[in-house]
């Protein structure tokens, strides 16, 4: 895998996106991997008791999944200098069928001097934004 060069990138470039399937099993796996065992992410009785419509995905799961759009495009996941997002909407994950999250990204800035490129990542579920102003800065070659 070679690392993308900053000179090959233009503001407005659209990164390859993808749609991911999120099920309860996805969330249990993420809970175990991240050690975030908040039951609103796997137990619907707990989720509804605090006013949620159903079990919701960890915000950090979606942030982590969206990062892969930028890192796969960059060619090296170690090139993320900074990454920020607001959590603006939940991914509601019903027992049957789970949810679909559409991930994408667009280049919003290119600094040829430092070879740093800013990518705005997007994640939407049922037509609504999950991440708000998700910006990853990547150190390219």
């Amino acid at each position, binding site marked *: *895998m070679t690392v993308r060069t900053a000179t090959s990138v233009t503001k407005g470039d659209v990164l390859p996106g993808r749609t991911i399937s999120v099920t309860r099993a996805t969330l249990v796996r993420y809970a*175990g*991997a*991240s050690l975030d065992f908040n039951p609103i992410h796997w137990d619907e009785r707990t989720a509804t008791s605090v006013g949620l419509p159903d079990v919701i995905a960890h915000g950090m799961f979606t942030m*982590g*999944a969206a990062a892969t759009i930028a890192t796969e495009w960059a060619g*090296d996941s170690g090139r993320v200098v900074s*990454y920020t997002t607001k*959590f603006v909407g939940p991914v509601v994950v019903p027992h049957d069928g789970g949810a679909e999250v559409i991930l994408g990204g667009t280049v919003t800035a290119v600094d040829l001097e430092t070879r740093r490129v800013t990518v705005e990542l997007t994640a939407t579920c049922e037509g609504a934004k999950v991440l708000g102003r998700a910006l990853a800065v990547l150190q390219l070659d």
Partner: protein
Amino acid sequence: MPLNVQAVGLSYPPTAPYVVSAAKIREFADAVGATDPAHRDAAVARERGYGDVIAPPTFAVLIAQQCDAQFVADPDMGVDFSRVVHGQQTFQHHRPLTAGDTVIGVLHVDSIKLVAGNAMVTTRSDLFVDDELVTTATSMLVVRGEDA
């Protein structure tokens, strides 16, 4: 008990060391769908100049949440955990966390804003390996008020 707004500027003692393992990196990469072979194959990672397999960019949350837990669980802070919502998250990486790193986190309470009955708490976890700052993870937690 209401949230203790006097906590702004407070720092907590360094956390117990967390050793980043190749197995945990692989688990985390699998869980977020990160396919980069540098998360799984040390030879690939070394070819790119890293010491061992590298963690995905949001892996640091695992350690940062252990730091945040000090604040959330601090009886002097008055945080009702069932009312905490994650509002915002930022990572600044000086290099990727790497298998074999022994990480120590230092938690700072940077700001507390009261907005419409909710408290917006910004905490910052500085993660050090051998006294070198490797990653800063900043979390904004919304603590919903009793009537919110």
